[in-house]
């Protein structure tokens, strides 16, 4: 069939023109992205610089509000979202497995710069540079607080999302973060209707509770929270003594300011040791269980890969040659690929999924285990404290803290 197709070309000879006809010269519209890419990185650094300055020097939210608007206008509506830091996770992972893929330097910078800032200053990127977070922040009117149980359970989703995104990128299957991006349709004013509705629902939710996407979905936020929880400099609500007035607690959109807490249950040394030992038993158990589950499910997971789907279609056709031929199967036969070739590549994908799926399962077990351990920890706090992993550095607490406002007035 392939040979037949080749024979089609130059069925008619090239004409001999007698009238001096010249072949038209076409110039095709070239992509002119290099300039924009540079501007993107400059904008990223500039906006993150402004947010950091507002957080650490000015200690007000005002500049962060303006960077949010600039970010929505520039990164959101003007640049229409690609490539974003959230999606760049997949490009970086993909570059590690696929040699033919050249990781663009801009993508690497978009991946690394927010992480470096999170490591130094906290999640400055989330505050007002990420257009997704900024959009949710701007529509936020009222903060109804979700119960700890609900928000605790939902906060595992970003980790699962991150792990699955890495799994599907490393197995060269798909970029699921891009596939299920809820806001891109809104920024592009068009696209997949299901996702636009999903984005609209998220925005509607963020009117009543702060940043549902950032807290319960964003995989990059999960990654940043690792670095912001151990960041070198930390945001302080006020530099004066806390008067435990609870105002900052109520202002926080992501509910990450913890109230003072007196740990009343006295734990003996022996009990403490037993508790730690039980952690070290439960954690490996969960890791192994997760790895085993994902290893068993790896064949099902691999169905997302096009080669696996094609393999099943071809096998179904080989078993029943009279059945209807799908477009994919038709393309397969017309390309002249052999079934051995497809089987080899199918096997390769299966092996990839076994290896990476098992690792992903172990990570899922680890995440669930650490979440559970975290729930069981009770810490004594004398004043309101930020839990830095989840703090998105929006600076709203600055405005509410009476101690901080006092300081502002003195400066004026």
């Amino acid at each position, binding site marked *: 069939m392939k040979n037949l*197709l080749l024979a*089609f*070309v*130059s*069925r*008619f*000879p*090239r*004409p001999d*023109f*007698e*009238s001096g*006809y010249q*072949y*038209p010269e076409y110039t*095709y*519209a*070239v*992509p002119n*992205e*290099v300039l924009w*890419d540079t501007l993107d990185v400059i904008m990223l650094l500039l906006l993150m610089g402004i947010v950091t300055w507002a957080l650490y020097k000015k200690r007000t939210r005002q500049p962060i509000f303006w960077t949010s608007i600039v970010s929505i206008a520039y990164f959101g509506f003007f640049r229409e979202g*690609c*490539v974003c830091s959230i*999606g760049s996770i*997949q*490009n*970086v992972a993909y*570059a*590690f497995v696929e040699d033919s*893929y*050249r*990781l*663009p*330097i*801009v993508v*690497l910078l978009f*991946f*690394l710069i927010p992480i470096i800032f999170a*490591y130094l200053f906290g999640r400055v990127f989330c505050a007002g540079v990420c257009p997704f977070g900024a959009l949710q922040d701007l529509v936020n009117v009222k903060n109804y607080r979700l119960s700890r149980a609900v928000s605790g359970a939902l906060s595992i989703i970003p980790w699962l999302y991150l792990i699955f995104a890495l799994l599907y990128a490393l197995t060269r299957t*798909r*970029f699921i973060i*891009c*596939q299920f991006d809820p806001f891109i349709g809104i920024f*592009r004013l*068009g*696209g*997949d209707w299901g996702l636009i509705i999903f984005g609209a629902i998220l925005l509607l939710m963020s009117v009543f509770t702060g940043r549902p996407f950032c807290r319960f979905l964003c995989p990059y936020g999960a990654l940043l929270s*690792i*670095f912001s*929880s*151990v960041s*070198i400099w930390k945001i302080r609500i006020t530099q004066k003594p806390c008067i435990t007035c609870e105002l900052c607690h109520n202002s926080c959109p992501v509910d990450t300011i913890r109230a003072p807490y007196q740990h009343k249950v006295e734990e003996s040394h022996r009990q403490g040791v037993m508790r730690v030992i039980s952690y070290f038993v439960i954690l490996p158990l969960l890791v192994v269980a997760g790895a085993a589950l994902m290893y068993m499910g790896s064949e099902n997971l691999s169905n997302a890969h*096009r080669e696996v789907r094609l393999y099943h279609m071809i096998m179904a056709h080989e078993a029943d040659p009279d059945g209807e031929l799908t*477009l*994919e199967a*038709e*393309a*397969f036969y017309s*390309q002249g690929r052999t079934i051995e070739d497809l089987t080899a590549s199918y096997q390769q994908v299966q092996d990839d999924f076994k290896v990476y799926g098992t690792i992903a399962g172990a990570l899922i077990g680890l995440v669930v285990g650490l979440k559970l351990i975290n729930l069981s920890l009770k810490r004594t706090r004398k004043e309101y404290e930020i839990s830095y992993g989840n703090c998105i550095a929006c600076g709203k607490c600055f405005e509410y803290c009476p101690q901080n406002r006092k300081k502002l007035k003195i400066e004026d």
Partner: protein
Amino acid sequence: MKNDNQISNSPIKRRDFFRRLGTVMAGGGILAVGGAAATKVKSEGTADLYWQIDHEKCTQCGRCETDCVMPVSAVRCFHANKVCGYCDLCGGYYRTNAKELNTAAENMICPTGAIQRKFVEEPYFEYTIDYDLCNGCGKCVKGCGSFGNGSLFLQVKQDLCLNCNECKISTVCVSGAISRVPYEQAYKMKDKA
């Protein structure tokens, strides 16, 4: 065992120790991943990648027209003049069952009337594509491929393409014809090859 002594004195110190350990590990992690990823950045040429259709694999299934994130797909039909036979009876211009060879819509293969032709000399006609009208359905490409030289082919028009991080058509393409290519090959052309 040094940590054990600190427990009895002040738990803050132990917590502080773990926090510092975490900071150092996180810093090391950034350096390791960043450094490893930096080796994957290849400097030769420009590293920007663009989505392109491999016309040797393309089967004109019609999904380019329907699955692009753009309201009108960024895929267009391109014409390689140097491959074209300049025929009067063009398989990419007239329908196979055309009753009369004139420009009435029922005889044209292009549903949007994007293919225009100009008389050059007996018996040759020059065919051009109006990119404002073309929607990348690929019907003419199929016609030209089966009855002509195959000079028409589908390609991503770069000034229309949003260059999504993952091209939506590439995920539904029946033959895996859409892939990322470097800038130098931003247009895979038939007459260039």
